[in-house]
């Protein structure tokens, strides 16, 4: 049961197509797991549909229909039912090149590992692997940081987050996400500004962590 959903702002930005790529990735991944947000997004997309339909028209070039018809295949593509999510839903699998076992992790200390995903530079996306019971170094944020749980669960000063839940942390939140005992917690974290860590060693490491 997902308890922490995407904000209206984020879903609207995704629908209007104005979010940075890393945020789009997190939204698409959460929506793959959450029918409630899929339905909310569907309603916001309907506003886009109404805007498109109310658009004044600009005539197409002569022969545009013929040109388009000439490009069409015999028939539309057959519908493929995708294999349901194992750990990573399809949009995330596309970025990783496979499911969780395909991630090329790098150790960042304390048993915590991360993998940076390639997105446009307007925001960054990374996967985090936190062994059961371990904590991610205490850190604050300059911008917005969203964390989506894909496996296991974590808790911090604010609440408890399990698979599908999204934590939205703004500049005011300094928190220490700690994985629940048991299986490792895997999260997708995106941020529009580099993190700043509070303890000395991680701060020194930050340039090398590229986050």
């Amino acid at each position, binding site marked *: 049961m997902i308890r922490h959903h995407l904000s209206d702002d984020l879903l609207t930005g995704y629908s209007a197509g104005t979010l940075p790529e890393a945020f789009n990735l997190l939204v698409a991944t959460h929506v793959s797991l959450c029918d409630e947000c899929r339905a*909310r997004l*569907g309603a916001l997309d309907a*506003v*886009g549909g109404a805007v498109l339909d109310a658009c004044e028209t*600009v005539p197409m070039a002569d022969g545009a229909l013929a040109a388009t018809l000439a490009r069409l295949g015999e028939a539309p593509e057959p519908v493929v039912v*995708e294999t349901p999510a194992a750990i990573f839903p399809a949009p995330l699998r596309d970025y990783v090149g496979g499911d969780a076992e395909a991630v090329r992790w790098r150790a960042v200390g304390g048993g915590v590992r991360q993998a940076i995903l390639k997105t446009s530079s307007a925001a960054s996306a990374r996967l985090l692997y936190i062994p059961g019971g371990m904590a991610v170094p205490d850190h604050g944020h300059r911008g917005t940081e969203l964390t989506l749980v894909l496996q296991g669960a974590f808790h911090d000063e604010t609440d408890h987050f399990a698979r599908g839940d999204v934590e939205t942390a703004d500049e005011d939140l300094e928190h220490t996400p700690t994985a629940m005992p048991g299986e490792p917690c895997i999260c997708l974290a995106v941020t529009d500004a580099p993190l700043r860590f509070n303890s000395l060693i991680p701060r020194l490491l930050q340039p090398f962590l590229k986050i």
Partner: protein
Amino acid sequence: MRLEDDAATHAALMLRVAQQADRQAFAQLFAHYAPRVKAFLMKSGTVPALAEDCAQDVMATVWRKAGQFDPSRASVATWIFTIARNRRIDVLRRDRRPEPEDLPWGPEPEPDQLDALALQRDTERLGQALAELPDEQRVLIERAYFGDLSHSEIATATGLPLGTIKSRIRLALEKLRQKLT
């Protein structure tokens, strides 16, 4: 021709494309939507020649992906909007555009026809409500969807009947999930 009169007609045309590869049905949809998609892309900052090319691409994608159209979850206008928006992101930002995992009914679509009709009607009502908003508010929403506002400037689309549409889509998803398990 106004869509208020024919969201259901467009959905029926779309199903003829999906199920019978009907080129005549496609041509009718092209006549209505291609000039709107072109206008939409131009308002989003695309130069006319590129907008023309992209509008043709968008319509070719409509054909190719017709099997994914689900009338119990979206109107044709909504579905084409999402394709046009993604194309705009490709072209103007050269970003990848991650999309949620597809959730199709399978090779034989079986959404309830009454559910589909109800959603099409709700969408028409949404179009009317948008048209009736005070100009200032309507223009803001339009600019947001043309990609003309930054994410933080986008006002929540208040005053529009989104709750009913959300509930209908939610119901359609529940039925689909039941079928899948």
